[in-house]
């Protein structure tokens, strides 16, 4: 048999080996930390999970794409691998440690493979063991990839949640809504603020919208620009925007930066802004006992 023939058939050998010895491999893997610590309900559950991975590896081997991380064979177990990686991460494992755990799956199964050959040290056994090692290396990469993906998605989800949580639009009165802004305003947050405020104007049929920046630490020209855009957009929809809570230090910065907020209606505090919005709607607020004592 020429060397090339041996190389070409090695993945086939590995594939049928995985298929035939699935039960044995699964039994050996089920006790490995990677599976045991994730599938805690029963050992059978871990064995089933191992079998799914062996099936996937066999499918990838038969397709000959030993080194292809996105081989279709992996599709079915990505979800499972992702959950395993996520569980290990939550338990405090670093991606490196998880990779090591995957690497430790190699030895038991390679040993098993070598036993299949009449001459476990012969060239054919060596060829197949090499193919299997390659395949398990790819599995390691797939696990790493799903782990990193899961992390990236978690971060993105948290970022989105933070955006939403940090910008509640409050109805202060019939026809008056307000957003108390807290923390640094970047472009992404400004977009969310603008969109949710404008949506609230429609939902509440609000004539007045208050942007309170008491909780904003600094106002640079970019933030000022976002504020002015929000005011302009609200006006186009038929609502008047009031910016309140400009602290003295921020007022100074605005003047020093040469930002012209002249077109923007401002009030010192949220209360002042609300009082303005109410009086413009012909609503008067007075103490109840003031009327009583006058009697």
């Amino acid at each position, binding site marked *: 048999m020429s060397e090339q023939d041996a190389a070409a058939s090695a993945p086939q050998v590995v594939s049928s080996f995985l298929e035939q010895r699935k039960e044995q491999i699964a039994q050996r893997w089920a006790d490995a930390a990677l599976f045991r610590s994730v599938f805690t309900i029963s050992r059978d559950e871990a064995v089933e999970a191992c079998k799914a991975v062996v099936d996937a590896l066999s499918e990838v081997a038969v397709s000959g794409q030993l080194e292809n991380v996105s081989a279709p064979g992996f599709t079915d177990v990505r979800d499972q691998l992702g959950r395993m990686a996520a569980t290990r991460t939550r338990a405090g494992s670093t991606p490196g440690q998880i990779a090591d755990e995957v690497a430790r799956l190699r030895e038991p199964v390679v040993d098993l493979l070598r036993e299949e050959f009449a001459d476990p040290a012969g060239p054919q056994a060596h060829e197949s063991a090499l193919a299997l090692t390659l395949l398990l290396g790819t599995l390691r990469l797939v696990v790493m990839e799903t782990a990193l993906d899961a992390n990236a998605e978690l971060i993105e989800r948290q970022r989105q949640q933070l955006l939403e949580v940090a910008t509640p639009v409050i109805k202060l009165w019939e026809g008056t809504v307000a957003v108390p802004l807290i923390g640094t305003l970047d472009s992404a947050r400004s977009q969310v603020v*603008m*969109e949710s405020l*404008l*949506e609230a*104007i*429609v939902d509440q*049929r*609000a*004539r007045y919208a208050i942007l309170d920046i008491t909780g904003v630490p600094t106002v640079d020209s970019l933030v000022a620009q976002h504020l002015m*855009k929000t005011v*302009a*957009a*609200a*006006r*186009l*929809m*038929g*609502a008047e925007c009031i910016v309140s809570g400009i602290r003295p230090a921020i007022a100074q910065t605005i003047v020093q930066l040469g930002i012209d907020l002249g077109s923007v209606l401002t009030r010192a505090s949220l209360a002042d802004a609300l009082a303005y919005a109410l009086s413009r709607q012909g609503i008067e607020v007075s103490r109840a006992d003031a009327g009583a004592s006058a009697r």
Partner: protein
Amino acid sequence: MNQPTPGLPAQIPVLALGDVLLVSLQGELHDGMAEQLQHDITNRISTSRVTGVVIDISGVDMVDSFLGRVLAEIASTARLLAARTILAGMRPAVAITLVELGLTLPGLVTALDVDRAMELLSQRGS
């Protein structure tokens, strides 16, 4: 050559409610139709007693600089003919886009919806 755009009337109807003209824009608007509308409104104001024009754009999902210019010109022309124009019902996405585009239409009076626009006209009218 040119396929007709589905769901489009050839002309935009202009309703008269007392001395107020009400125009409701819907969906896709051809440049030609917008210009025709500008012409129609000007004609109506000059031939009958009109004190206000309400343009309802709650059914419009995009305003570009062309339509923006037409709307602004309708308002300025109406003002010259002693009628006030109110743009009503602009959607949030349209408003954000117009501002990003750099078009803030400073000369136009706006209202949340047609009801509010009518309210505004009657307040100032009396």
